[in-house]
């Protein structure tokens, strides 16, 4: 039974990370109908920035949770800045272009960012410093759940609740929903579309950075390629739950996390990614709108 719970919490952790990244995908897709292929790279840049910031700050004598929080904050700010800039360079000029153009541009951006980090830093795995000690109160259950896992799950829950409240009740959230429904109409009603899109990218990137920092802290090593697989899987999660829907992204992330965790635990660990991609293909073929998504018919 312990093994089951270990897998369960492992899946929950993974799922939470997927959910954090998937939120960014789903928000961007909801508003400009673009698969932001470079989103996984934002997550990777977040992890790298946190690692660099943590190393630099630890020279100043900072340690423990304050170091994690400060490095995490720096990573979030930087990732948000990257997300903002990427949108301005690679997507904004293409808003009126054919459907495939922004997607190809996004793939180009993703390749560019990967190689930018590869060349400026290193292609090796870097070990991420352990920033959080095991919590004392987690001692009795430490064999099935680590403290860093608890941190991930709790942070994801808080982030999701905050995001939902923001979108539901704030002025900007309302503007976002309006833009997602009908861009032209929103524009006619005096909503600054460019600002809404920028804010969407900033929030999505910040969430991805949070995910990047937490998972690196949990796993303990990063390299320039982590964003690719994480990005694809988070996208799978977003599609699974129904792209454009925020609870859907979280649900999709959790389902994907558990599927992977149990499949690798009980069947075979070699085919971990095959299960994820297989699930993606399966879902898209039989329920293209996802679990919580609505099917929209195309107007001619």
């Amino acid at each position, binding site marked *: 039974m312990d093994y089951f719970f270990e897998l369960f919490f492992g899946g929950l952790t993974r799922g939470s990370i997927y959910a954090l990244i998937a939120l960014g995908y789903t928000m961007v897709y909801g508003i400009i109908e673009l698969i932001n292929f470079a989103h996984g790279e934002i997550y990777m*840049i977040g992890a790298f920035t946190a690692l660099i910031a943590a190393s*630099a700050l630890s020279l100043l004598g900072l340690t423990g949770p304050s170091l994690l929080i400060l490095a995490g904050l720096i990573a979030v700010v930087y990732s948000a*800045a990257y997300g903002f800039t990427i949108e301005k360079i690679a997507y904004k000029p293409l808003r009126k272009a054919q459907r495939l153009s922004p997607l*190809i541009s996004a793939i180009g951006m993703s390749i*560019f960012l990967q190689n*930018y980090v590869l060349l400026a830093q290193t292609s090796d795995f*870097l070990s991420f410093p352990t920033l959080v000690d095991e919590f004392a109160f987690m001692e009795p259950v430490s064999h099935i759940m680590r403290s860093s896992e608890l941190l991930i799950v709790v942070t994801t829950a808080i982030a999701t609740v905050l995001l939902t409240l923001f979108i539901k009740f704030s002025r900007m959230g309302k503007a976002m929903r309006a833009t997602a429904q009908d861009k032209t109409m929103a524009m006619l009603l005096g909503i600054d579309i460019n600002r809404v899109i920028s804010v969407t990218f900033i929030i999505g990137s910040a969430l991805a950075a949070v995910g990047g920092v937490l998972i690196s802290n949990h796993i303990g090593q990063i390299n320039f390629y982590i964003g690719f697989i994480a990005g694809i899987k988070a996208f799978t999660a977003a599609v699974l739950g129904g792209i454009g829907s925020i609870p859907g992204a979280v649900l999709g992330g959790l389902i994907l996390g558990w599927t992977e965790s149990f499949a690798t635990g009980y069947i075979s660990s070699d085919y971990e990614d095959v299960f994820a991609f297989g699930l993606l293909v399966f879902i898209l073929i039989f329920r*293209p709108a996802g679990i919580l998504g609505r099917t929209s018919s195309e107007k001619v």
Partner: protein
Amino acid sequence: MGIQAGLIIRKAASEIFRSALVSCWFMFLTFPIMVIKVNPLERTIEWRWMRLVWIGVAAFLLSFVWRYLMMRRERGSARDESESWQARLGKRIRNDRKTSYALLAALGLFMVLFPFTFSSYQTQIMISALMYVMLGLGLNIVVGLAGLLDLGYVAFYAVGAYSYALLNHHFDLGFWAALPVGASLAFLFGILLGFPVLRLRGDYLAIVTLGFGEIIRLILENWNEFSFGPSGIAGISRPALFGVDLSLDQHTIYLYYIVVALVLVTIFVVGRLRNSRIGRAWIALREDEVACQAMGIDKTRTKLTAFALGATWAGFVGCIFAAKTTFINPASFTFMESAIILSIVVLGGMGSIIGVIVGALVLILLPEYLRAFSEYRMLVFGASMVLIMVFRPQGIITGVRRRYQFRLSESREAQREKDAASA
């Protein structure tokens, strides 16, 4: 006069200020990753301040270029494409028979003499460039003509390579026997993978094909009994020439001619396909799916043929790849390979055959000869994909759409002339 000069100065000052802002922003943005390098083992940090200066200067200058190009883009969209110098040059070459024949003959001679004038190493590079030409033309059917963004194209390439490698390993089958087998297997896989994704819209299709590509690579990597896992298959035999014993250099030359011949076949077939009924159906499908169906085109069949025919070429090239390197493993078939082929198609000009050829030669040959910059290859690929999409979405060379003009009097005259000539 004084007022005008003042205006110009004020304008220039504001432009410089904007560029300075951009420059500061990029210096901020790239600061942690470009400047700080952590050595995790010794727990030390290396500061590389010079890079910050370079970034600042480069961003300052590039922001001028960017804004100028954006301005031109906005103005250019109103202008007709046929006015551009490329279009005029293309038209002149096409219309002037003598020049075009002379150019073709020179090119043909160059290609024939290439392996004798250049070293074996150069020939090897040329072979791989020509392989990418074929891959690009194959993917061009799927992406450029039919408008289906296939990010898992490398899977079919892997199918071709592994079918030759495995057939050769287990049954000692030669290159010429394996070539059609590899191509037909890739064709089958194209249909197999094409079927489930038919219902999907453009961007979903891209992700699912990417997923398929990764699944195939992962299976090849993990199914040791079948594919020998990550260690791959070695000792694949080179193509045979009627039992003649060839040295290594001669083999290279022989393979070069095989590839040149196959490229010619590919160009011919793809060119004919594009102007055929099915080719026009692909283009129609790309432009507007609903209108296309309303005109009575079978969407399923059209998409499937695009997928399968595109895959066939990847199968061919896969076999050649296995024969060229005599060793394959799953690491040659990553997503990056798909991305390179895609950038060839995008850069060259989607739908244009000459464009794809030029794109492949530029993208594969340039990094080979600019060795010093070869590590920046993927960086430049990525950046150029973005820039091409923003500033020149039609690629280096625009695909020329066949135009039919209905001019009653002239067409009758032409018909009469033709009749007279044939009689």
